[in-house]
């Protein structure tokens, strides 16, 4: 990005055309009921953001005023960090609120690079994170100004620079994420990293639990270490630049305490612009991220093809769908990763307190709760059976296989994954806690026999009535059906409640075999219900084929 910021008349015209395009798209979206509903939701959410922005600004402004009055200007870092984290993390975690332009749509026009850069930058400048972050910074600035009016001009310059750094960093992160999400392998690695990141939040509780038992000096030492670690980062530098002008260090000039941190902050901004520029230039030059297989010399021999899995007892189409489902799962990094989540959670709960952590008072519940949690993790699979198939769903309707066979293949695959999960949870319980009693193990297994068939039958129905296309390996841009999500929670709540009731009732007998019997009767009913639902699946799928094909074939 070099040269003057002024635009040629043609560039101004192009910028106007892009703005007009966005406006037209917005107006046209209001033609449908869904579009108007979307607008109403956005207004509602927008008001919530305004409330959060103004409330946060008042709170942060008050806090800034207070820390300056108390003579603790170095604590401003504690106020700038939440702003920084929100500004950077919110757009990543809630991409639905962020406007991202598809570069291919713009690059076919004769845009200059400068204009392309500006448009890409502008797209992110109007999102809620920028608006709320800016409001919060204005609040802090006013707080500083009220407490120390003489510092206001300098604080405004620093905070404005901090805002620009945030804006450029957010755009830079998005540009690079888009690059990594453009290819399947990097996309899946990103998915796993994102998942790990989300999971790491689960460690906050155990960490707090660890430090709440430490002495005050120890905790203070940790605080000092954290404070030192954050200083070279943008929020720390912005805080230091302001603090340096408020409370000059004895023996140090304003240049070292205030100007140097500010220059370092500027350096961050320049580095982020450079990285953003590097990425956007590559896009502008038309980099090729195609993953199409290249052509090699043709082979003369017939290729060696491994036959499909031989699963005795299963009809060909059921076995084929079973194999296909497991192959799909094995190629979805994030989905595979969910397999270890129950174990991870067991470990988290184990470390969240002394003795046996959260399960200290009810160790017998570890295995059943772990199994129930495993079932929740399969919601995406079992309640949206065809989500990952996309336009391939058409094939199921074109093939001579009955829909009940297809559903059975999918259900068996999901049940197999669940069985592996339950086994892992059982082993985890044995290793991290203590082996569950025979009674608890049998009751849990019988409970699964009751819950699983009903859950799968319900999942099949929702998969047909409320399908939603899933792009494997992509996070943040999936549009799940809200109806399905709410219904799955309701159904699981009811099933787990009934299971808990039966467990409580059966424990009154104190006999493992009696417990098993109490669960097996409803399990038989559940299996009958599953068979009943499966017998009707063919007709239901046929009646809803258009809805299924159009919803799953469409790319959002």
């Amino acid at each position, binding site marked *: 990005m070099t040269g003057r910021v002024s635009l040629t008349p043609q560039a101004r015209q192009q910028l106007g055309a892009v703005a007009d395009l966005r406006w037209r798209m917005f107006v046209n979206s209001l033609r449908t009921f869904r579009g108007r509903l979307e607008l109403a939701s956005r207004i509602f959410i927008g008001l919530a953001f305004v409330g959060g922005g103004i409330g946060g600004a008042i709170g942060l402004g008050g806090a800034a005023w207070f820390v300056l009055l108390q003579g603790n200007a170095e604590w401003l870092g504690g106020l700038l960090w939440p702003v920084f984290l929100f500004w950077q993390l919110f757009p990543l975690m809630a991409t639905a609120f962020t406007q991202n332009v598809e570069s291919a749509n713009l690059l076919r026009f004769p845009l200059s690079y400068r204009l392309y850069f500006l448009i890409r930058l502008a797209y992110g400048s109007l999102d809620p994170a920028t608006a709320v972050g800016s409001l919060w910074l204005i609040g802090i600035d006013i707080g500083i100004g009220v407490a120390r009016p003489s510092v206001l001009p300098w604080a405004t310059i620093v905070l404005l620079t901090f805002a620009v750094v945030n804006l450029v960093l957010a755009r830079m992160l998005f540009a690079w994420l888009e690059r990594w999400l453009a290819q399947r392998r990097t996309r899946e690695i990103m998915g796993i990293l994102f998942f790990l990141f989300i999971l790491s939040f689960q460690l906050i509780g155990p960490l707090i639990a660890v430090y709440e038992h430490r002495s005050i000096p120890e905790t203070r030492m940790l605080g000092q270490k954290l404070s030192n670690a954050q200083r070279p980062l943008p929020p720390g530098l912005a805080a230091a630049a302001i603090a340096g002008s408020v409370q000059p260090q004895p023996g140090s000039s304003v240049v070292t305490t205030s100007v140097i941190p500010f220059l370092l902050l500027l350096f961050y901004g320049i580095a982020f612009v450079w990285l953003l520029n590097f990425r956007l230039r590559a896009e502008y030059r038309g980099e090729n991220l195609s993953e*199409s297989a290249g052509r090699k010399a043709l082979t003369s021999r017939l*290729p060696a093809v491994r036959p499909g899995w031989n699963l005795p007892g299963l009809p060909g189409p059921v076995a084929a769908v079973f194999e296909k489902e497991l192959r799909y799962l094995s190629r979805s990094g994030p989905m595979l990763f969910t397999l270890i989540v129950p174990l991870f959670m067991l470990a988290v709960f184990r470390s969240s307190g002394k003795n046996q952590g959260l399960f200290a008072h009810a160790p017998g519940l570890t295995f059943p709760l772990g199994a129930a949690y495993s079932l929740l993790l399969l919601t995406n699979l079992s309640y949206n059976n065809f989500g990952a198939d*996309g336009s391939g769903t058409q094939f199921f309707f074109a093939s001579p296989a009955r829909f009940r066979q297809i559903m059975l293949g999918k259900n068996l695959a999901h049940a197999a994954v669940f069985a592996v999960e339950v086994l892992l949870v059982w082993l985890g319980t044995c290793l991290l806690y203590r082996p569950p009693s025979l009674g608890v193990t049998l009751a849990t297994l019988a409970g699964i026999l009751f819950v699983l068939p009903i859950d799968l039958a319900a999942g099949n129905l929702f998969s047909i009535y409320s399908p939603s296309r899933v792009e494997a390996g992509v996070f943040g841009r999936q549009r799940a059906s809200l109806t399905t999500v709410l219904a799955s929670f309701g159904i699981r709540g009811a099933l787990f409640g009934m299971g808990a009731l039966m467990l409580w009732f059966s424990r009154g007998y104190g006999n493992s075999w009696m417990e098993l019997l109490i669960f097996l009767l409803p399990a038989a009913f559940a299996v009958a219900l599953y068979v009943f639902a499966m017998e009707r699946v063919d007709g239901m799928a046929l009646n809803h084929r258009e809805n299924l094909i159009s919803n799953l074939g469409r790319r959002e």
Partner: protein
Amino acid sequence: MVSPTISTQNLTRRFGDLAAVEDVNLRVAPGQFFGFLGPNGAGKSTTLKMLTGLLAPTTGRIQILGLDLVSNMVEVKRQIGVVPEGMALFGRLTGSEYLNFVGRMYGLDHETAAKRTAELLDFMQLTDQPRALVTDYSHGMQKKLALAAAVIHGPKVLFLDEPFEGVDAIAAGTLKAMLQRMIARGATVFLTSHVLEIVERLCTHVGIIHRGRLVAQGSLEELRAGVEAQSAGLPSAGAGVPGEKLTLEQIFLLIVGGSRTDRQELSWLG
């Protein structure tokens, strides 16, 4: 008289007030290479979807190989192959896994499915990247794979929606060779296409749908004779040079009224 492989009676499909297909009566005889043509939005894909069971007709009747489609859905599907709009591939399988999967869905045993998969991959020249996932294939490779999947079970009737769209000349040559083999062994091919040159070269019979209605049907010669008879003596009908045979494109334009573009001008193009 030979009973038709594909026949429809008053086939109609409505989407709300819009009649996408209306009272279509098709007859495709065994062994015909049938091209189903029409302008954009004429109802080609909708008709093909109904013929393959992907879309329910509003009214009307469909018979494939003498069987009523609605009451013999599974039996009919066993005997047909389909390349629908969007190709219906499973992106996260490799080419061989996909063909194996399709073969078994059509009831082939393990060994037969694997043997045919190998032959088809070789014939379609898809052996270069055995570990590549379908989602990473180029568009042409995906088209070839979709056609391979449609023929793996040896169907008697093949339905293809725009098989040559977005396909280069080399891949198109492979697809044409495959289709001609199918016809040679007695299969019937029903395809929709915008590429009239290919239809003219490959197809023995043609049907033209316009605004949801079947406006012409027959062999190329029959269509040509019909158009020439209708336009004889009309001053504006001279799409072709006198004495020369009308091409399919000229016949098509005369039937659907597309020749009006000749008279249109764009001011800035001079």
